[in-house]
Structure formats: structure tokens, C-alpha cells
């Protein structure tokens, strides 16, 4: 019996050792993917299966349109319910990858007779793809190092790091949901292509690059990173036919693939962002041609001549490119791109970009918050790439440097940094593990891998220690003392556990709020759901005509379109700055100015978000200055930011607010009737901690139509022109005079609400 057992033991060890390990690896990867999906479900469990935030509502609406009307009408979709009265060529101005993916999944599940609601597919798409991202990270890391633990660690890091979870919790149905997977996978394919010099992998890279282009505007990152990698390799004198094959097959196919997307169109040959890829393509042709000629010609003199020729052509081409840019054939860099180099650029020239919070520069704590311990493992991993600088490790270094810079410039780009941080820190961490775990256990897999480091250690030890020491006489150098092993391993395990704790905590506390539904804690600790947004949007849906135009600040455009299904003036697709400025002007001007604007744009209802009662700080009064700035950009004579500040330069809403502020439509709409909630003279704004004037603002051209439970959303109806042809101000004052100035607080809105 025992003999048989030992026989089988031997058998397992010898024959299926690799298979067992492979199986284990698959199981571990599946578990990691499972953990990645599970940790993103907080929002579904806490709240419900709901689409989050702003942009996802548009994507959701577009997906519903795609599923209902089919692919072709989606492609040609002209949406007349947004940007009233302009409309939007939606099919040509979106990245369709996300919607098409979920549409395909929907139809596949239907085909398999699993009727799943499209909303659930949309909600769970991001977690599902995060599992795939973990797998892609494993593949990418495995290409970088031979240590098998690094890939698994990287996959685990990628699966739960908050930097990625922030954009991929269940319900955040945004482009990034699938784009990060595509980003990592494209990089994996690229590395594979460069390593093997294979057209097949190059073509696959191009295909996934095309998919990425269809999914996210961040594809420009790949478009510039791959050429940069190739360029650096050429400059390092590492040109090889493999590079030629992989790069040219990627570029030729990938550019064509990217041009299939209507929104991208001719950009790859017209805009400056894409020129580096084209330039490196040309350079590679040159270098390749010259290399080939060199093998044909024996003479040394020609070779120097040829090298000069390459340099000459390169400089001429660069000059030509600059000339074309200056003359306008090639579009210069876009504003968004400039703001990457000059962080102050957007604030001066394009306030609409600067007004988005995710375009702000990153605060330092955010790095630790999003990446935790990886932020200090990351440089170690990058350093290790320098030790054995192979082609693919050059890639890591370039990626790390570029992405760190970009992540520092824009909060949002933390997302592109996260994959490389996971890869690099997994490399560093696995090095620690390999060194301390396997020094004395040669049967474990990374023993062979340890060879280099051991040799290096041996050399170092020999240099430092005299010959006669016992430790140097031993054939194997490694960490033998159990104490040191235990200490280091214990510390590592503690760090890993802390990392998991941190990630879980951040995910559950910071990144799992749908922001459509707010949660608060009651004094007894139970959860209280604040559902004002949906309450108001549903009110709009039920109580207004199907084509009632809603004016609101652009942040809420997508939500109104998605939840209330009503036409809006402006939304989060900020393609027309003037139109947004018009809304900003209407909000920030006096009623007499705003009313004609609203009539001209056929506005029926105006929606404002007001957090004063609840202390909800993301409300319109806090965003108000951006409206003013954007309006000022178009009408500098009529709207002046200075007038909204007190002489002492303060932005106030209380008694001392400037007349311009007090007379602006936004201020009036926010605080209309607000004082009636409080005893006389006690009205306070809890966001800005301000005691409001005893006398509330008066409205004449619009009337309150709806106010949600916690006053977060207030909806006003724009009055029809007066029956007697009076202007609204005199009509209101006439009405008031009739009532013998009974009370300034009218109960009108309450009556309306009961209806």
C-alpha cells in the first residue's frame, strides 16, 4: 500500500507536476477573477442594480436604442431629444464599442434562451470585464518575467486595486469599463508581437487596437505609446527585423481599423496626436530599407552615408510635418491634449474642460488612496526592469514614466497608470517572495529562476567576505535562517492583508455610491436612502408632456434623457460650447434677460439641484461659478464673474451677496420659498453655512412646479406670456397688490404639488 502510494507520489511529481501547476494556476486565476467581480458588487448589494452617475445613463440609453432598433439605425442615429433645437448626430459622435459589446452579450444570452434584462447586462458589464482584465494582466506580466508568481500577483493586484475599481463598480457603465481590459490586452499582444516578430500577433494587436478605438477616446495613449516604444528601441540601437514586422503590421492594419469608427474617421492621418505613429512607421521603413541595403553592399563608406541619409530624411520629414501643421493640413493638438502639458491651459482657454472635476490635477493622497502599498513597490519593479533591459522591459519603463506623468496631471488618468503599477509592483513583490520562500526548497518552481540572483549574490558575497568563511564555502548562497525568512514573509503577508483590507474599505466606502441614489446614516445607525433624483425625474416623466423641453445645467442632461425621457437643451456630451454658454447665461442673468432666452429655446421646465437643506455639496450653487465663467467666455459684456463676488472677493449667498448674485435666476430658483421652511429669519444654507435673508427671492416669469422630498431637485415651469400682454413683473405685482400684500410666502407650489 505504502509502496504504491510512494509510486504514485513519484508519478505525480515526475509526470504531471507541470500539469498540476497549470491546473492550480487556472484555478487561482479563476478565483482572482471571481474576487475581482465580487468586490465590485457592493453597490448592487447596498443599493440596487442601477446605472450610476452621469455618462453611464447616456450609454445605457444608447444601448437600449441599439437593442430595440438594431445596429444600422443605431449607426445612423440622429437624436432630436438632446441639444434642443440642434439635435445630435449620436451615431457618428460616440464610441460604439461599449454599446455593441453589451448588445452582443444580450443577443447571445437570448440565443442561449436566457432572457436577461438589458439593464442587468449593463450594470454587470464592468465587473465582468474586470475579471478579464485580471487575466490580461496575468498574461502581460508573464511575458515580462519568467517568475510565475509575478503574473498571479499582478492579476490579484489588478483585480482589487481601487484605482481601477473606481471606474468599474457594478453600475458604472462607462467606456472605461471595457477599455481598460482592451488596453492591457492590446499591450500584451504587442509585447507578444515584438518578442516573436510575428505578423499574426501584430494583426491581433491591430484588431484589439481597433476594438479599443471603438470603445474609448483613451486609445490615443496606445497610439502614442507603441510608437514611442519602437522609437526608443531604434534609438537604443535595438532595431531588429522583429520590430519591423510587428510594428508595421500593427500600424498598417490598426490605422485602417481605427478609421472604421465614424467618430474617429480621418483623424489618424489628420491630427497631430496620431502623427508620431505615422512618423515612426516611416522611420522604420527607412531603417528597414537601409539595413537591407547594407547587407547587399560591402563598403563601409556607404554605410556612414546611408546613416546620414536616414538622418536627413528624418529631419526633412519632421520639418514637413511641422510645416503641414502650421499650414493647417494637419489639425494641431486639441485643447484636451494641451492641458496635459500645461495644467493651467484649460482653466484659461477652455473652462468647460477645467470645470469637470476628473480633469483636475491629482492630489498626492489620491495616489496612496488608489494604489495603497503598490505606490512604493512600483519604483522597485521599474528598477528591476533596468537590471535586465530586454525589449519588453523597455516598454514597462516607458509606460511607467509616461503614465506617472499623466496620472499626476489629471485625476482621471490614474486609470491608465494602474495597470503598469500592478505589473511593476507584482514583479518587485514576486522577487521578494522568490528570494525568501524558495532559497531552500528547490522543488518549488521558481528555484531555477533564482539562479541569476543567487549567482549575483555569490559574486557579491565573494567580493565582500574573505575566502575562509563557512558561509561562502557552501555551494548554495541564499537566505537560510528561518528567523529572517519568517520576518520578511510575515511582513509581506501583513502588507498583502493590509492591502486587501484597504482595497475593500476604499471600494465599499468611496467608490460604490451610485450618486443617483444617496445614502445617509440615521442617528440609530440604520441606513437612510435619499432618492430625490429619481423622485424628480419620475415626476417629470409622469406629469409633463412627452416633448416638454427641460433646461438644466449640462451635468444632468444625460440623467434627464435617461430617467425622465424628456428632451434637454444641453448634456454631458459637451460638443457645443456656445449652447452651454447660452444656458449658463440664462442661469446667471436676471429674469428679464433669461425669460426671452428660455422662450427662444422653447424651454418648458427648468431644473436646478439645491443641496442647502440637506447639506449636499454637489449642487448648482457650488457649480454656479463655472456657469458664469463659461457664459462669460461667450458674452464677456453681459456676464461678468467679478459681479458675483462681494467687494472683498467672497462668494456669498447670504445677506451680503451682491445684487447680481441675488437677482440671478439660479439664486432665485435655489432659494425660492426656502425661508418658509424655517422660523422667521432662521433660514440657513447647510452647504455654505450661511444665514439667508429673511425675505426670500421673488419669481415672476417662472413658477415652482415641483420640489423633491429633501429639496435636492427643484423644477420650475416657465410661464406662458401674460394673457393681457403685460410683462410678468407687472402682472405679479398686480396680483400681489390684489391680495393686499397678505403674505410674501405664497402657498402656490404646495397646491401644485398635491395635484
Amino acid at each position, binding site marked *: 500500500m505504502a509502496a504504491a502510494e510512494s509510486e504514485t507520489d513519484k508519478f505525480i511529481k515526475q509526470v504531471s507536476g507541470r500539469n498540476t501547476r497549470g491546473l492550480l494556476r487556472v484555478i487561482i486565476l479563476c478565483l482572482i477573477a471571481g474576487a475581482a467581480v465580487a468586490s465590485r458588487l457592493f453597490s448592487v448589494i447596498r443599493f440596487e442594480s442601477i446605472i450610476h452617475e452621469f455618462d453611464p445613463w447616456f450609454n445605457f440609453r444608447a444601448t437600449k436604442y441599439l437593442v430595440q432598433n438594431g445596429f444600422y439605425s443605431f449607426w445612423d442615429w440622429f437624436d432630436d431629444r438632446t441639444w434642443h433645437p440642434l439635435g445630435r448626430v449620436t451615431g457618428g459622435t460616440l464610441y460604439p464599442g461599449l454599446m455593441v459589446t453589451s448588445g452582443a452579450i444580450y443577443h447571445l444570452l437570448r440565443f442561449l434562451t436566457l432572457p436577461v434584462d438589458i439593464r442587468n447586462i449593463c450594470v454587470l458589464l464592468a465587473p465582468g470585464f474586470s475579471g478579464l482584465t485580471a487575466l490580461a494582466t496575468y498574461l502581460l506580466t508573464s511575458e515580462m518575467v519568467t517568475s510565475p508568481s509575478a503574473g498571479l500577483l499582478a492579476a490579484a493586484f489588478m483585480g482589487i486595486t481601487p484605482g481601477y475599481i473606481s471606474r468599474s463598480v457594478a453600475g458604472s457603465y462607462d467606456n472605461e469599463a471595457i477599455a481598460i481590459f482592451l488596453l492591457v490586452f492590446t499591450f500584451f499582444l504587442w509585447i507578444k508581437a515584438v518578442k516573436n516578430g510575428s*505578423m499574426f500577433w501584430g494583426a491581433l494587436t491591430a484588431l484589439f487596437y481597433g476594438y479599443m478605438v471603438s470603445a474609448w477616446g483613451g486609445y490615443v495613449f496606445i497610439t502614442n505609446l507603441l510608437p514611442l516604444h519602437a522609437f526608443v528601441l531604434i534609438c537604443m540601437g535595438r532595431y531588429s527585423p522583429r520590430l519591423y514586422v510587428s510594428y508595421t503590421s500593427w500600424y498598417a*492594419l490598426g490605422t*485602417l481599423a481605427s*478609421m472604421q469608427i465614424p467618430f474617429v474617421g480621418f483623424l489618424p492621418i489628420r491630427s497631430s496626436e496620431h502623427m508620431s505613429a505615422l512618423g515612426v512607421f516611416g522611420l522604420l521603413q527607412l531603417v*528597414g530599407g537601409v539595413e537591407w541595403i547594407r547587407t547587399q553592399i560591402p563598403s563601409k563608406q556607404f554605410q556612414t552615408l546611408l546613416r546620414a541619409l536616414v538622418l536627413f530624411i528624418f529631419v526633412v*520629414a519632421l520639418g514637413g510635418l511641422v510645416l503641414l501643421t502650421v499650414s493647417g493640413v494637419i489639425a494641431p493638438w486639441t485643447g484636451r491634449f494641451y492641458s496635459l502639458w500645461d495644467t493651467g491651459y484649460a482653466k484659461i482657454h477652455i473652462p468647460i474642460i477645467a470645470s469637470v472635476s476628473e480633469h483636475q490635477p491629482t492630489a498626492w493622497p489620491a495616489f496612496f488612496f488608489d494604489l495603497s502599498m503598490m505606490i512604493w513597490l512600483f519604483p522597485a519593479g521599474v528598477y528591476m526592469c533596468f537590471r535586465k533591459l530586454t525589449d519588453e522591459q523597455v516598454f514597462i519603463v516607458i509606460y511607467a514614466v509616461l503614465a506617472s506623468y499623466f496620472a499626476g496631471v489629471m485625476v482621471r488618468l490614474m486609470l491608465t497608470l494602474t495597470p503598469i503599477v500592478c505589473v511593476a509592483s507584482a514583479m518587485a513583490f514576486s522577487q521578494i517572495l522568490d528570494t525568501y520562500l524558495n532559497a531552500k526548497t528547490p522543488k518549488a518552481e521558481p528555484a531555477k529562476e533564482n539562479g541569476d540572483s543567487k549567482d549575483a549574490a555569490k559574486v557579491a558575497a565573494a567580493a565582500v567576505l574573505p575566502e575562509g568563511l563557512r558561509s561562502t564555502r557552501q555551494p548554495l548562497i541564499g537566505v537560510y535562517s528561518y528567523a529572517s525568512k519568517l520576518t520578511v514573509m510575515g511582513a509581506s503577508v501583513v502588507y498583502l492583508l493590509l492591502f486587501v483590507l484597504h482595497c475593500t474599505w476604499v471600494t465599499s466606502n468611496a467608490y460604490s455610491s451610485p450618486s443617483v441614489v444617496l445614502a445617509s446614516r440615521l442617528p440609530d445607525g440604520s441606513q437612510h436612502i435619499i432618492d430625490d433624483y429619481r423622485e424628480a425625474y419620475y415626476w417629470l416623466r409622469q406629469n409633463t408632456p412627452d416633448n416638454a423641453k427641460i433646461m438644466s445645467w449640462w451635468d444632468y442632461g444625460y440623467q434627464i434623457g435617461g430617467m425622465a425621457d424628456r428632451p434637454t437643451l444641453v448634456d454631458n456630451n459637451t460638443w457645443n460650447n456656445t449652447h452651454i454658454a447660452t444656458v449658463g447665461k440664462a442661469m446667471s442673468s436676471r429674469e428679464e434677460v433669461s425669460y426671452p432666452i428660455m422662450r427662444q429655446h422653447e424651454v418648458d421646465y427648468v431644473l436646478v439641484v439645491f443641496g442647502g437643506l440637506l447639506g449636499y455639496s454637489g449642487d448648482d450653487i457650488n457649480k454656479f461659478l463655472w456657469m458664469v465663467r463659461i457664459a462669460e467666455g461667450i458674452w464677456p459684456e453681459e456676464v461678468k464673474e467679478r459681479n458675483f463676488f462681494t467687494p472683498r472677493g467672497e462668494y456669498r449667498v447670504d445677506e451680503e451677496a451682491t445684487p447680481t448674485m441675488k437677482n440671478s435666476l439660479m439664486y432665485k430658483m435655489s432659494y425660492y420659498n426656502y425661508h418658509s421652511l424655517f422660523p422667521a429669519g432662521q433660514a440657513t444654507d447647510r452647504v455654505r453655512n450661511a444665514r439667508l435673508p429673511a425675505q426670500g427671492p421673488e419669481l415672476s416669469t417662472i413658477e415652482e412646479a415641483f420640489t423633491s422630498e429633501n429639496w435636492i431637485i427643484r423644477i420650475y415651469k416657465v410661464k406662458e406670456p401674460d394673457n393681457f400682454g403685460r410683462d410678468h413683473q407687472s402682472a405679479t405685482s398686480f396680483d400681489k397688490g390684489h391680495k393686499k400684500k397678505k403674505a410674501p410666502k405664497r402657498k402656490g407650489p404646495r397646491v401644485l404639488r398635491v395635484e
Partner: protein
Amino acid sequence: MAPKSRVPEKSSVSTSSAPKAKKAGSADAQQIVQDVWSKYVNKTPQRVKLLDSFMVFLIVVGVLQFVYCLIVGNFPFNAFLSGFSATVGQFVLTASLRIQTNPENKAEFESISHERAFADFVFGSLILHFFCINFIN
């Protein structure tokens, strides 16, 4: 840009040899060109020559398209672009195939057999032409 690299076989050699011609006379330059040519004719395998002729053809087609675009105008820009990128892409793929199957590069491409290289070539070309046809309008 693409066409420049492979033609040089004759053109760029003769231009770059011009300074040298001053020292050694034009007969020497001619000699070198002839040597290179005869070496090419004799030493290159038949298959590679076939690929080369295809590449020269692609260059000619590409240049023709470009000249047409310059003279007549680029009105159906989609059509011009897809036609031109088809030639460029096909050229690049053929060049890759040539590099991979060239016995001189054996060391670089250990993992890729000639059959595999050809299969890759077909795969890449299929994708390329699918995109071109889709893009041509």
C-alpha cells in the same frame, strides 16, 4: 513613405555613390551597381525574387495613386485612402513575409516556420482587405 525604402536598391545606391564617384570615377560606381545587381540576381532565391517583384508592383501602384491624388484631387477621400492604405499595408505585409522567410534572418525568427509566416501573411492580408473594402464606401 513606404515606397522609398525598397526602391533604393537602385536609386538610393546610385545617389549615395555620387560623392564617391568623384574620387574613383563614374566607372567605379557603375561597377558597384553592377556587382550588387549581379549578386542580387545570382544569390537571391527565386521565391524571394517573386516577393520583390510584387513589392515593386505595389510601389508603382501606390505612387500612381498618390500622383493621381495630387493631380486630380482627393475627392472620394475614403476611396483614395483605402486604396492607398491597401497598397501600403500589402507592401508592409509582403516585406514582413520576405523578412521572415529570408534564410539570413533565420536566427531572429526561430519560432516561425515558412508555412507559419505564409499563414500569418494570409491572415493579415485578409484583415487588411476586409477593412479596405469596408472603408471604401
